[in-house]
């Protein structure tokens, strides 16, 4: 063994600890990056050499830069992401519908319906009062306006959802392309003997983003390639990234492959919530609202057309509402132009308010299903409120689980600055000691040189 061996060990040591400090620097710089998995330097001893009957150590080596990661937690996070995103998106979109209702308030459909019937009741007391007739028209107009606001607001939310669904699908297509590209890059680097830790983090982030959008299944093959399927339909691997599009089938928005060969069976994620609210929830609300308004219109018209106006001679057979289409409850133009065309009398005399009284009574009159007109609307409000509450509560629940899983992941993969700075000190001291070793070896060599010179 010669002195040069000391130089070799010290030099190798300097190099290793410099590398270790590089890794620590990378960790520290990513301490605030939530998608980063900390990396760990794995040190090992160099292969010893046999000399003079002994095995002599040859110093330290950098065996690996490993990525500290827990695949099981990742999987749980993705499953939870889909559920949370689905509930949260439903809560947000249905919350918008709920806000449209403006209930409970004086400006909601319920209060305006009551005000409408109250106006009829007031008219029944003095049926020949033009002011009270005008009051009925104004109450009807306010109710009609609010119904239109709510109904067309629902249509508007549906339009927004349609755009959102297209945007969701574009985002999914982009994520799948990214995953395929990252798979290929990771494969190449692994083949070159590299540890593509940062690319793995990026791929995990994209997969997590994708799990927010749809229910996915991720399988890793022996080469650590991520194979993605969405709702049972193959979506991406190392070679292929399937592209999807939206299409209308039987009046419902569905997501299919570009060639239309397969439809996605969505059960979770933002896209599921958007399509479900678009296809099912809002149409169901609109249907309930339409039923309420149609019943209101028919009931009022049925009474109104049997009564007599305040004209001379009194006219009969005049409807109060003309029509109800796509959210617009149209009041008879003749009545709008001349409130005397309101038929409040059952016998044509100006002081008879029987018809007005009957219409006022519709507010409490039971229909064939045993409910009142307003009960039907209240059921809709209750349904929307329950749907929003359910979605919000579910989202909160998944959010708590999500927070715990992220804490779990942060505990395992996150960077601790204290830990890294301790490593810095450790590596710095090792580096300094190695440098001192070089100095000592140099002095020893100088001593030998001085002896022979």
């Amino acid at each position, binding site marked *: 063994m010669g002195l040069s061996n000391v130089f070799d060990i010290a030099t190798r040591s300097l190099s290793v600890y410099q590398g270790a400090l590089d890794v620590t620097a990378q960790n520290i710089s990513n*301490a*605030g990056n*939530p998608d980063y998995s900390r990396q760990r330097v794995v040190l090992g001893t160099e292969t010893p050499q046999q000399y003079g009957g002994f095995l002599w150590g040859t110093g330290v080596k950098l065996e690996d830069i490993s990525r500290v990661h827990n695949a099981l937690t990742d999987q749980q996070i993705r499953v939870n992401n889909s559920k949370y995103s689905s509930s949260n998106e439903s809560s947000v979109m249905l*919350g918008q519908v*709920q*806000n449209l*209702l403006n*209930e*409970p308030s004086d400006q*909601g459909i*319920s*209060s305006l*319906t*009551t005000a409408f*019937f*109250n106006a009829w*009741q*007031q008219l*029944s*007391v*003095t049926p*020949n*009062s033009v002011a009270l007739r005008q009051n009925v028209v104004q109450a009807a107009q306010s109710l009609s306006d609010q119904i239109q606001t709510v109904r067309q607001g629902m249509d508007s939310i549906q339009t927004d959802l349609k755009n959102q669904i297209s945007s969701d699908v574009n985002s999914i297509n982009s994520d799948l392309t990214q995953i395929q590209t990252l798979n290929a890059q990771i494969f190449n680097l692994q083949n070159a003997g590299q540890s593509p830790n940062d690319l793995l983090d990026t791929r995990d982030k994209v997969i997590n983003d994708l799990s927010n959008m749809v229910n996915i299944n991720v399988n890793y093959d022996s080469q650590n390639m991520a194979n993605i399927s969405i709702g049972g339909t193959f979506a991406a691997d190392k070679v292929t990234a399937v592209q999807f599009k939206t299409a209308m089938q039987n009046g419902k928005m569905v997501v299919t492959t570009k060639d239309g060969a397969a439809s996605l069976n969505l059960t979770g994620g933002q896209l599921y919530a958007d399509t479900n609210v678009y296809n099912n929830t809002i149409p169901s609300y609109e249907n309930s609202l339409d039923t309420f308004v149609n019943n209101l219109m028919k009931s009022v018209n049925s009474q109104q057309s049997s009564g007599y106006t305040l004209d001379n001679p009194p006219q009969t057979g005049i409807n109060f509402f003309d029509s109800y289409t796509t959210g617009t409850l149209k009041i008879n133009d003749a009545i709008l132009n001349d409130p005397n065309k309101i038929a409040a009398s059952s*016998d044509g*005399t*100006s*002081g*008879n*308010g*029987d018809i007005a*009284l009957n219409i006022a*009574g519709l*507010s*409490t009159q039971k229909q064939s299903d045993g409910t009142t007109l*307003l009960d039907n609307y*209240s*059921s809709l*409000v*209750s*349904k*929307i*409120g*329950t749907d*929003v*509450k359910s979605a*919000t509560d579910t989202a909160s629940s998944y959010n708590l689980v999500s*927070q715990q899983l*992220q*804490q779990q992941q*942060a*505990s*395992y993969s*996150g*960077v*601790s*600055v*204290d830990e890294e*700075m*301790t490593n810095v*000190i450790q590596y710095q001291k090792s580096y300094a000691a190695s440098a001192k070793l070089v100095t000592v070896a140099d002095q020893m060599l100088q001593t030998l040189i001085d002896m022979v010179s």
Partner: protein
Amino acid sequence: MRITDLMMTNSFLNNLTATKSKVSDLQTEIASGNTIQKPSDSPIGTVNIIGWNNQINQANNIISNISSGLDFVNDSTQALQNIQDQVTNVLSDLTQVQNAANSQNMGSFAEQIDSALSLIMDSANTESGGKYVFAGTDNANAPFGYTTDGKSIEVKDSNISGAQYIRISPNISDQINLSGTDVFGTIVNGGGSIDSGTAVGATVTSQTNVYDAQGNQYTFKANFTKTAANTYNFTYDILDSSNNSVLTSTPAAQSMVFDSNGNLQSVDGKAPSLIQINVPSKNINFNFDPTAVTEKSGASSLSFTTNQKTDIFNTLINISNNLKAGIKPTTDQMQAVTDFNNRLINNISKSGNIANRLTNAKSLLNTKTLQLQELVSQTDGVDVAKASVDLTSQETLLQMSYQMASKVLTQSILNYL
């Protein structure tokens, strides 16, 4: 457990968000005074509040209408009392005029009766809130006035028998007016029965005496011609003393349908009501009430009765005219005024009953409204004291979180190296 910086940051932010959310909710509650801002806050509570508010608004509206109705009823009662005061004076005059000592003052009594008639007419045309109280449902114009020849008084409106209803509870309507017919009108009350075995096409008739404004006698003849099972065409005629019709045109037949119990179910498809019969050329005006006519097995036995010969206005005119001609009032005329006085007392009593019902209904609705408001308050109202304490507590927690963050999150090993 390994604690990383990200964990501490996330933990701090999650807790901070939760606390701020609670503070925000409490602030909204206190500011709005409501615990339910939107249906999802309490779906069942929202539906209850919608229902209760609906009932409260409806009750307030009914209370307002009852108040208007009470004004109307009180005006009606006052008018009836004014009329009764005059009728009492007339009765006193009619008693005095019978005294032989007053034979020379008949003209003076006639003037007093004319004065009373004028006041009675004025009260009969009492207006309340733009509506003539005794004009039934044709109440935009004064119901009573002189004929064009100025000799008698006639009904000016088409229908003074109409009933005005207002809602006194969400499900109950009540009549608030005493119609002109109720108070002043001549009514022929139909009674008895028609044989249900009458052949289709056969006619059952009945008749009674009716009188014009001057007290001349006519015959009111009612015909019930069977057109189908339980169904009859009702027609009528007015015949003078020579048995000639005084009608200028034949009235349209009205279809009367009896139910399975033999009670009159409908007239021309509507609920049975008074049938107004008016012959202006002869100053004949009365109402036929068919509601008590029945159909049953056995010989037909229709019988009609009349509540008065002529109305109070024309009775007084006739008395006054007689007095001016030196003729004392007849026993029939005195009895007619007495009968009208009794009728007035009954009507004043009815009017009082209507006012009592309205007042009771209003009181019930006020109580109900208070109960509903209590329910709304219990469901949606904010316990301000509790909310304030909770808010203070949450604000303290928030401040503690900030202080903890400022002490812990900023510390690391770097501070000691």
